[in-house]
């Protein structure tokens, strides 16, 4: 047994490697990115020929993982919570097809929105798909769950959702590893039509999934990750899910005076919860994310014993938990800290000095001045920071790819010209289909694909768009006269403003591609070249 110092994300990757995985599939997204990065840097992954290459988006990642499972090998697809929205179609249907090789879907949620546009709770997706959900409380459980998750998936013939939150994903601790399992040899599904979701087959598969539910619940009740921990004071029973268990133990220094049900595997372990309800006079639910368990315990009529949690104001309705919030919900005040002086000012993130997006926004703002504000739709990436001063350059950031399609809709409504600003990686993630819509109606919009040849915000991962954008735009049908490649440098400012102005004046679809390497990856690549 070897002990490694790993982030929660890295523990998942190592657990999967040791658990006999054959393929990692993912699109970068905070806080899930480091799972794939760890796999890509692992010598073992290279030696064993394990697949670890970024996919174009989360949907293609999950579908490829389903394909590997079909072929009888173990696969994992990793994404941030909103990535699961993109992959939802594949994800939900994978519970109907079932699996052949074990399949784990990892969703890393971001309560408090450290680096996201919402704080949706992926446990609802797992519930929706009727599959087991694993939620580690620490790095060791993260490793264990990835290590054993493939077998859980194979046992019930369903994918398994592994859900964690930012704090665990990005926190490091010691992890003990186990004996390495061999990869599966690969085999076709016993039933050749298992993955053919024609209605007649889907109905049969769905019934099988429903019939499996009692066994899946029983597995949760018997899971080593779920525990009933008895204690003398029955005035309160505590349900602690995932990482919330650690905050609880922190406050009681490992010895909680109230009975606790620790939950790290769902569906909720009914047996433990029934016992807690029967023995305690009230219940406090601690969970990071939405009141998922709390709502189930409360039920529609909320009759029975008092249940406290996020819905009662004992804990805040939004934002991530922390030890202080948990202590307060228990009526235990922790020691007071010192006051933060008023002189401390906010320091929001900003585009790096020397970043090409800066030059793009400077040119765009100048070119658009004659048309007035409020017509720039943007997307998800570093360039979203163009919404902040000094640029104040964009008016939307909704979901991956929405810049182009929102510009189309706004132009349809008469806002002409409308402009879309999208990054290269986001363009190949979800922008290409929208561009096809624009080609078909020749929408009077200007699409700016700000190409820094990397997935920048998440730390500079390989972009599927690298070196391909012009050809993709031509292939989709954008007229070559209105595909303009520019170099966003200060010295080209006047020229770039003139080109943007020309295309804004054109009553049809234009694509402008400012191309300059990300300043972060440029510095890194230069260093690497020196070596």
């Amino acid at each position, binding site marked *: 047994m070897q002990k490694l*110092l790993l*982030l929660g994300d890295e523990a998942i990757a190592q657990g999967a490697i040791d658990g006999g995985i054959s393929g990692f599939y993912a699109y970068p997204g*905070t*806080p899930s*990115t*480091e799972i794939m990065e760890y796999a890509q840097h692992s010598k073992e992954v290279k030696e064993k020929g394990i697949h670890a290459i970024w996919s174009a988006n989360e949907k293609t990642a999950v579908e490829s993982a389903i394909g590997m499972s079909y072929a009888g090998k173990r696969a994992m697809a990793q994404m941030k919570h909103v990535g699961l929205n993109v992959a939802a179609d594949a994800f939900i249907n994978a519970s109907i097809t079932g699996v052949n090789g074990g399949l784990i879907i990892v969703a890393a949620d971001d309560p408090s929105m*450290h*680096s996201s546009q919402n704080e949706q709770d992926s446990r609802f997706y797992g519930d929706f798909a009727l599959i087991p959900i694993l939620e580690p409380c620490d790095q060791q459980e993260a490793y264990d769950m990835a290590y054993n998750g493939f077998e859980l998936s194979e046992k019930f013939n369903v994918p398994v959702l592994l859900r964690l939150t930012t*704090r*665990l994903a*990005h*926190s*490091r*601790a*010691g992890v003990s590893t186990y004996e390495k399992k061999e990869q599966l040899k690969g085999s076709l599904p016993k039933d050749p039509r298992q993955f053919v979701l024609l209605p007649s087959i889907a109905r049969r598969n769905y019934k099988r999934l429903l019939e499996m539910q009692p066994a899946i619940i029983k597995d949760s009740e018997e899971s080593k990750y779920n525990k009933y921990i008895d204690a003398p004071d029955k005035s309160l029973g505590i349900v602690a899910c995932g*990482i919330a268990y*650690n*905050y609880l*133990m*922190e*406050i009681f220094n*490992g010895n909680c005076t109230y009975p606790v049900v620790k939950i790290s595997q769902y569906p909720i372990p009914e047996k433990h919860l029934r016992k807690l309800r029967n023995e305690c006079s009230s219940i406090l639910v601690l969970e990071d994310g939405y009141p998922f368990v709390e709502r189930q315990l409360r039920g529609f009529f909320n009759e029975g014993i008092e249940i406290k949690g996020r819905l009662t104001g004992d804990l805040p309705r939004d934002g991530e938990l*922390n*030890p*202080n919030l948990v*202590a307060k919900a228990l009526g235990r005040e*922790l*020691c*007071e*800290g*010192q*006051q*933060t*002086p008023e*002189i*401390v*000012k*906010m*320091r*929001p*993130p*900003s*585009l*790096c000095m020397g970043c090409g997006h800066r030059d793009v926004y400077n040119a765009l703002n100048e070119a658009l001045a004659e048309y007035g504000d409020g017509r720039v739709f943007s997307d998800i990436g*570093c360039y979203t*920071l163009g919404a902040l*001063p000094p640029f104040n350059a964009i008016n939307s950031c909704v979901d991956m790819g929405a810049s182009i399609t929102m510009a189309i809709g706004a132009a349809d409504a008469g806002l002409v010209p409308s402009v879309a600003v999208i990054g290269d990686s986001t363009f190949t993630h979800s922008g290409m289909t929208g561009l096809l819509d624009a080609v078909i109606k020749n929408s009077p919009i200007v699409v700016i694909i700000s190409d820094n040849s990397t997935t920048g*915000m*998440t*730390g500079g991962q390989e972009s599927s768009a690298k070196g391909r954008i012009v050809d993709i735009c031509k292939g989709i049908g954008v007229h070559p006269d209105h595909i303009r490649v520019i170099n966003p440098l200060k010295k080209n400012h006047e020229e770039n403003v003139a080109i943007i102005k020309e295309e804004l004046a054109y009553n049809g679809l234009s694509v402008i591609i400012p191309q300059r390497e990300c300043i972060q990856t440029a510095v890194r690549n230069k260093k690497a070249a020196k070596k």
Partner: protein
Amino acid sequence: MKTDIILAGVGGQGILTIAATIGMAAVNKNLYLKQSEVHGMSQRGGDVQSHLRISDTPIYSDLIPKGCADIILSVEPMEGMRYLSYLKQDGYLITNSVPFNNIPDYPEMDELMKVLESIPRKIILDADSIAKDTGNARASNIVMLGAAVPFLGMSLEDLEGGIKSLFGRKGEEIVELNIKALRAGYEFTKSKM
């Protein structure tokens, strides 16, 4: 022993290197360790912090509760003060005095220093100049780490071991430069106590 440390700075200033060095030293000593970091959007020039906990008994929470940190170690004078609500009443703020000014409303330096001076327990040093004097201008974060050593519950030798483990593959010269920076920071604090 148990030490709870808040590391503070601006994205890109190298607080994760400090965390990794302490982490290596802790692992070499078979101590328990939890260290949470900030990745993603805030790394782009925004304020960043890391919670680092080391102990000879198991650690539960990845986050340090407010009011419980033993020290705040900051590589920037305003950033350390941002997290004072985490610092226990008799805890120390150890901070670099050199500002990182990338916002339009950064406070006037003399006012900022006045507030900083009013904090009861603090060590303030110009880590950038000290780093330059040791011949490695880029090691101001390691100078800051050195200045914090007397508060970490580990010895200077432990931390030197951490530097060897972390920088070893970059060559002997890099290791030596960083150890020099570490010692310079350590000497500064020693002279103030």
